[in-house]
């Protein structure tokens, strides 16, 4: 592998990794706040992608309008799903498993509902930006640069919300201790609702940015969910900064790994890394060992 090829792969890895980071951070947000492992998270991505496709391609809405609308729609969908299912399971006997099982059911249900409604063909969205910039021998399509910029902005906005706003304080307080938060008047139920909505929105942002590169179909959520799992294990389940770091790391390792082997081993590299981390540091690469 030549040096410039290595640099190019690292850049590509960071770009895709920034999307893995968005997916992982949605999972981490829900897990960190509610201790719920959301197996239907990939379906937020899948449905978000369809929303963008229908608005931008079928109805011809300009993409700078279509994408925000799709994100809001997925936010609402996330809240709806939480209110209709998870809400009734939280705190009940065996809720840790029942929420996993319910989201598994949701995932299959939504996949097949999408299959019946939208059909099994692969849909795609045209590039939002055309053109390539060249730095030395490295060529970087603007579309990919846009992906990275959107990821940075989203992560920045999420960090701002979590650290600087009353909503963010309430989310973090509920995550730390639900009962203590309730004592000072934070309504946990509403926080859970919003958390699920935010996770949905994060999934939709990733879907909107990846829609021109990866095709949208009813099953496109599952591989993304599995990526998200690797990310949250690498970063420590439930940690928002961990998910960002884990996503970027996975992106780079995959890009270099694929260059050294071949593309059909891409997923094996990620999963093997995940199992290695579970053996070595189950609390995540960047987390502290729980005492």
């Amino acid at each position, binding site marked *: 592998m030549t040096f410039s090829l290595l640099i190019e792969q690292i850049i590509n890895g960071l770009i895709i990794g920034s999307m893995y980071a968005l997916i992982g951070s949605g999972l981490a947000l829900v897990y960190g706040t509610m201790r719920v*492992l959301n197996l239907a998270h990939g379906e937020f991505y899948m449905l978000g992608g369809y929303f963008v496709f229908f608005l931008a391609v079928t109805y011809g809405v300009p993409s700078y309008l279509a994408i925000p609308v799709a994100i809001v729609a997925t936010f609402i969908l996330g809240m709806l799903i939480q209110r209709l299912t998870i809400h009734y399971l939280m705190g009940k006997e*065996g809720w840790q498993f029942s929420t996993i099982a*319910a989201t598994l*059911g*949701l995932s299959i249900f939504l996949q*097949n509902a999408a299959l019946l409604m939208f059909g099994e063909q692969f849909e795609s969205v045209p590039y939002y930006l055309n053109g390539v910039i060249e730095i030395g021998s490295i060529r970087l399509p603007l579309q990919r640069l846009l992906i990275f910029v959107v990821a940075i902005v989203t992560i920045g906005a999420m960090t701002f919300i979590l650290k600087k706003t009353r909503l963010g304080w309430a989310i973090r307080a509920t995550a730390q201790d639900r009962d203590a938060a309730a004592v000072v008047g934070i309504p946990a139920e509403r926080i859970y609702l919003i958390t699920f909505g935010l996770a949905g929105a994060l999934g939709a942002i990733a879907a909107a940015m990846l829609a021109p590169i990866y095709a949208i179909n009813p099953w496109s959520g599952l591989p993304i969910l599995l990526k998200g799992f690797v990310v949250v294990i690498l970063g420590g389940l439930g940690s928002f900064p961990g998910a960002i770091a884990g996503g970027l790391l996975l992106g780079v390792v995959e890009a270099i790994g694929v260059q050294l082997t071949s593309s059909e*081993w891409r*997923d*094996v590299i990620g999963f093997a890394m995940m199992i290695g981390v*579970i053996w070595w540091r189950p609390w995540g690469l960047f987390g502290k060992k729980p005492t």
Partner: protein
Amino acid sequence: MFQPVKPSQWLVIAAAILVMAAVPLVTRNSYLLHVLILTMIFGIFASAWNLVAGFGGMKTFGHHAFFGIGAYVSALLSIKAGWSPWLTIWFGALAATGAGLFIGLPILRIKSMSHVAIVTLGFAEIVRIVISNLQTITRGELGLWGIRPFEGFTLPFFGEITFSPADKVPYYYLILLLLIGSTAVIMLLMRSRTGLSIIAMRDAEDAAESLGVNLTRQKLLVFAVSAFLVGIAGAFYAHYISILTPTAAVGIDLMILVIAMALVGGLSTFSGPLVGALLLTGTVELLRDLDQYRLLVYGAMIILIVMFLPKGLTTLGPVLRKRFASR
């Protein structure tokens, strides 16, 4: 928690075995037998998953890896080495056990249910992708075909027994024996010291450990037995269906189906997974024409069961009785 089996329950077990054994005497309809054979394969799979997830409280989502390993190892040994399937199914099951120990060891140290779910799911994906990528050996998604059927033999009174696609009866009795055997193994295991410690661990891990239960060894034993049984089911499946693809033999749909069966029937009961297997396989076949709604219905069923009947259909009776009594 665990009472001895009551005489009335023995009677139900005996009656169920008799009914199942009598089916081929009444009808030789190969479609019906095929559905029942699939039911029994899934019955073993769901019972073995229930052993780990229900009784053991270790919620794994990657047991389809063991099914696929059992199927592929047995099929490949019979094709490449030319060994008899009667021998290779045990090697398939042992390979699944080995994989079970490999993935069981790290996850046993983890108490978080979510970590266990993620890691087992990821492990199964690795197995599926590896099988699918090693095309020179497994032929990948093109399908591994030409898997040898079980050799026939001669039984006194019954005469020549041959295993062929045309006659499903020998397969039917073989899988029935395997199902009875696996259920017996699970029941015996759960009534042994190991079973009692497993239940104690699930319900109060720290207390059990402080009383000197060796957590890791007991959990690992249960995990290995479960992987072995799923491996056997997979190996039988390979020689029965005689064509394997990674999607059909290690696909996540398989795991979803089995989880749905165990949940519908009732987790942590002996009969639940078997009842679930019968109900769901049966429903699928009844709804053959509505095939595109099959997974939609499964998904909805999992959600509804989890929300409204978390202990499964086997507890429907008591739940209803309570409801009517309270009126």
